[in-house]
């Protein structure tokens, strides 16, 4: 299993979001250039899991062209942290919308 989330990007629109289930898991949001803007998770307190979180995001970002990809994962918290660490290992910093996370609190991976 690849440790990176490498599924194809989907346009963030109601058609694609409605296809999602209410499962728990992680998701990434990207801009038109497919640069990752944020890495998040739909956890145990989300009302409708991945579908609920992305529906909320869709409503808040009306008019913007965004992309998303998801991974259904019951270990959403450790997977979320892992994806953040991979992003830092790849790009040297956290995604634009995850800047509030304290980078020094994240672990460091040396990905071979």
């Amino acid at each position, binding site marked *: 299993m690849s440790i990176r989330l490498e599924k194809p990007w989907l346009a963030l629109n109601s058609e694609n979001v409605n296809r999602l289930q209410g499962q728990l898991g992680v998701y990434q949001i990207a801009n038109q250039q497919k640069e990752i803007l944020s890495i998040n998770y739909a*956890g145990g*307190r989300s009302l409708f899991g991945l579908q609920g979180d992305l529906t909320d995001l869709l409503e808040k970002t009306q008019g913007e062209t965004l992309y998303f990809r998801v991974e259904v994962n*019951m270990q959403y*918290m*450790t997977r979320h942290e892992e994806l953040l660490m991979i992003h830092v290992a790849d790009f040297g910093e956290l995604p634009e919308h995850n800047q509030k996370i*304290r980078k020094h609190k994240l*672990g*460091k*991976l040396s990905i071979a």
Partner: protein
Amino acid sequence: MDFDMTPEQQLIIDNVRRFVREEVIPLEEKMDPDASAPPPEDLERLKNQVRDMGLYGLGIPPEFGGPDVGIVTQTLMAIEMAQHRGGLYSPCFGAFGGAGLAQLFEATEDQKERYLYPVLKGEKHGFFGLTEPSGGSDPARAIQTRAVKEGDDWVLNGAKIFISGADKADFGILFARTDPDAGRGGITCFLVDTDMPGFHVRRVVHTLRSTHYATEIQIENLRIPAANVLGEVNKGFGIANDRLSRQRIPYAAGCIGVAIKAQEMAVDYVKIRETFGAPLATRQSIQWMIVDNEIDIRTSRFVTLDAALRSEKGESFRTEAAMAKLLASEAGGRVVDRVMQIHGGYGMTKDLPLERWYREMRIRRIGEGPSEVQRLVMARDIIGGSFH
């Protein structure tokens, strides 16, 4: 054996119980059901409250600034501290502090300056690197990471797995083979800085726990000065083994704490939940589950406190600690399973902590030595070492 609490112990336990119920559990109600850390400002507030209670730095010897609390009292506290959703692996979110790596108290003064004192001040964090892909229950044979002397340095090559916190640590205690032909007499313990060239955390290892992942480490031509040998060359097995025995008592106590909390939930629920016109509490099948839980909890508690008392008195406690770890981890699993059954569908949901405890309690039968190894340890003591 007399396990009646002294007035001082009772006061401490009452304080810890109040702290868990009034400070810790309300915070968890706002957190993700799988989370183990509150916002930093809340954690700092909790730590200050623990400092005010005079209990901060649990496990740190008083001469190094820890509270003067005996092992029995610490065990009673550990039972209380685990009684919340994240309590099995993050009792009170770590608000009681503690050194974590007790081996450092035996380090040289130079090593204490570089590692122990910064840990006690919260400036550095360490990891414990024992288990390898070839196994963790039999370190005498499973350790394949090699350390070869080159001039004044040691050069290490190998891999470690299921290591907690290595990706966030500043240093670690790492075990390597220094004599390939000497079995348990050929292992040495090293202090390794994680920024040394050749130290790599290669991946996160996801498990049933959704927080506090483990990591896999690769060590490639990692050069360590001789001054970083902890203890004596080829005497590392004793350091590892001592830690494993001591750790079994608080490990058992955590399982008991969660089992007590689950049982408390069950006792409350069976009085209010009705089926076929009568409370669950009137059903014999349910009553027996509650009674079996109580037997599991009381036997585990008795054996664990016996191990703690022997340890506190300086007596041999290896068999008792192994027995406590085996009993409490298996009993805890049974208790949580029965309480889930009593709660029916709700027991499976993330609304209640039971499903998290169910996953985490399963790990407890493996972590710190699986049940089978605990039996092996006891058999060696009972029958005699030459028959293993």
